[in-house]
């Protein structure tokens, strides 16, 4: 269960949202400049809200009242950045292994082996390449693998499909949905594309100028819960 209450003031925009979210894919939908990425950054711990509280599965990550601010590296929240943010000087394999602590290398204590993740995302054959040698869709898969490899309890995706061509986007949409069902952790996905929202969302928050204007639970949700049980 993700609980978030975020207040943050910028010149020109005030972000003021509160939501709870249990499972499936939550889509934050809104035009650019509506504060979507800032909300993801606050959940991940890359930015601090001015006030509010954020907790995941009962663990408090941020609370202005209790003066808690857990640093990003201790939150175990996966984050797929808009432009993937792959390390250009490391190979696909080194990129995906970056988040695995040294003592866990070799798979001990980890639910899923590195190779399984690469296989699931169909990038095993790319493991010795550098990011500059990959297509957009491949980069996206590597970024997903890297984020999932640390076994996060929540995955954040910032416009994950916006840089892809039509065919790739369609494929990855389906795979994202499937991945969420396999992984069984909540995904929070930011987009400004209505179609993407409709295809992926189990729950939608519409954002307008930093404020939640509407929450929707599409019919899809019931179906998806049945699927994941």
């Amino acid at each position, binding site marked *: 269960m993700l609980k978030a209450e975020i207040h943050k003031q910028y010149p020109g925009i005030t972000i003021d949202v509160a939501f709870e979210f249990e499972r499936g894919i939550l889509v934050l939908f809104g035009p650019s400049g509506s504060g979507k990425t800032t909300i993801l950054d606050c959940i*991940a711990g890359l930015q601090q809200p001015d006030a509010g509280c954020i907790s995941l599965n009962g663990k408090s990550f941020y609370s202005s009242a209790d003066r808690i601010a857990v640093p990003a*590296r*201790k939150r175990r929240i996966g*984050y797929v950045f808009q432009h993937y*943010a*792959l*390390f250009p*000087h490391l190979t696909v394999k080194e990129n995906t292994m970056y988040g695995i602590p040294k003592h866990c290398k070799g798979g001990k204590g980890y639910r899923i082996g590195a190779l399984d993740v690469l296989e699931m995302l169909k990038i095993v054959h790319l493991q010795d390449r550098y990011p500059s*040698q990959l297509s957009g869709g491949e980069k996206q898969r590597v970024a997903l693998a*890297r984020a999932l490899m640390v076994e996060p309890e929540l995955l954040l995706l910032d416009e994950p499909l916006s840089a892809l061509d039509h065919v790739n986007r369609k494929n990855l949409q389906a795979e994202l949905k499937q991945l969420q069902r396999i992984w069984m952790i909540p995904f929070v996905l930011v987009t400004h594309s209505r179609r993407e929202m409709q295809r992926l969302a189990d729950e939608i928050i519409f954002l307008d100028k930093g404020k939640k204007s509407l929450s929707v639970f599409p019919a899809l949700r019931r179906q998806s819960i049945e699927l994941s049980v």
Partner: protein
Amino acid sequence: MLDPVILSLKVALVAVALVFAVGLAVSRAMARGDFPGKNVLESLIILPMVLPPTVLGYGLLILLGKRGPVGGFLLEAFDFQLIFTWWAAVIASAVVSFPLMYQSAKAAFAGVDVSLEQAARTLGAGELRIFLTVTLPLAWPGILAGLVLSFARALGEFGATLMVAGNIPGKTQTIPLAIYFAVESGETAAARNLVLIITLLSFAVVFWLNWWSRHKLQVWKKERVSRAEGGNS
């Protein structure tokens, strides 16, 4: 004949090591941080690059001399006289070459995409690990350029060195000083040989570091180039 060459290399290497350590820390802090007085501090750091070496030499004399705040302290506390030793030459070289290292390293750090560091943070990496595995490798070509420039500058330092370290053969007489005094006393042959040596030395260093950075350090860039070429054919 070889004394000035060995001394010059020793002085330049130690100076560059100092400049590298301090320069990395300062430029890293200045590339990302923003604080009141940053512009003033930055101007002070760059100042040695534009001031005449004699002005720096004068300033260092005041600072490091027997009655200066630093020189006086060292003399009293450790009975160590800094001025007119090869350490004074190291400090003079370090001061004049610092701005070159600083500027290259700062631009290199600023050029590293912040989102890569953010990504590393979400993957559980601490700040030191991020610096060593992400920031430093990506900024390395620029830092290396700074190293080459500061080494060359340190090797060629003349004015400030003469003022704080003097011209003591075998002790503080570096190549540039030896050349000057050889010419002045009419020993043209000795001067010519030293000129040849320092020119070749500087050329070799610059050439080797350039070659090294292109072939060994930027594998991922090379890969990209070869791929682009392959894609075109």
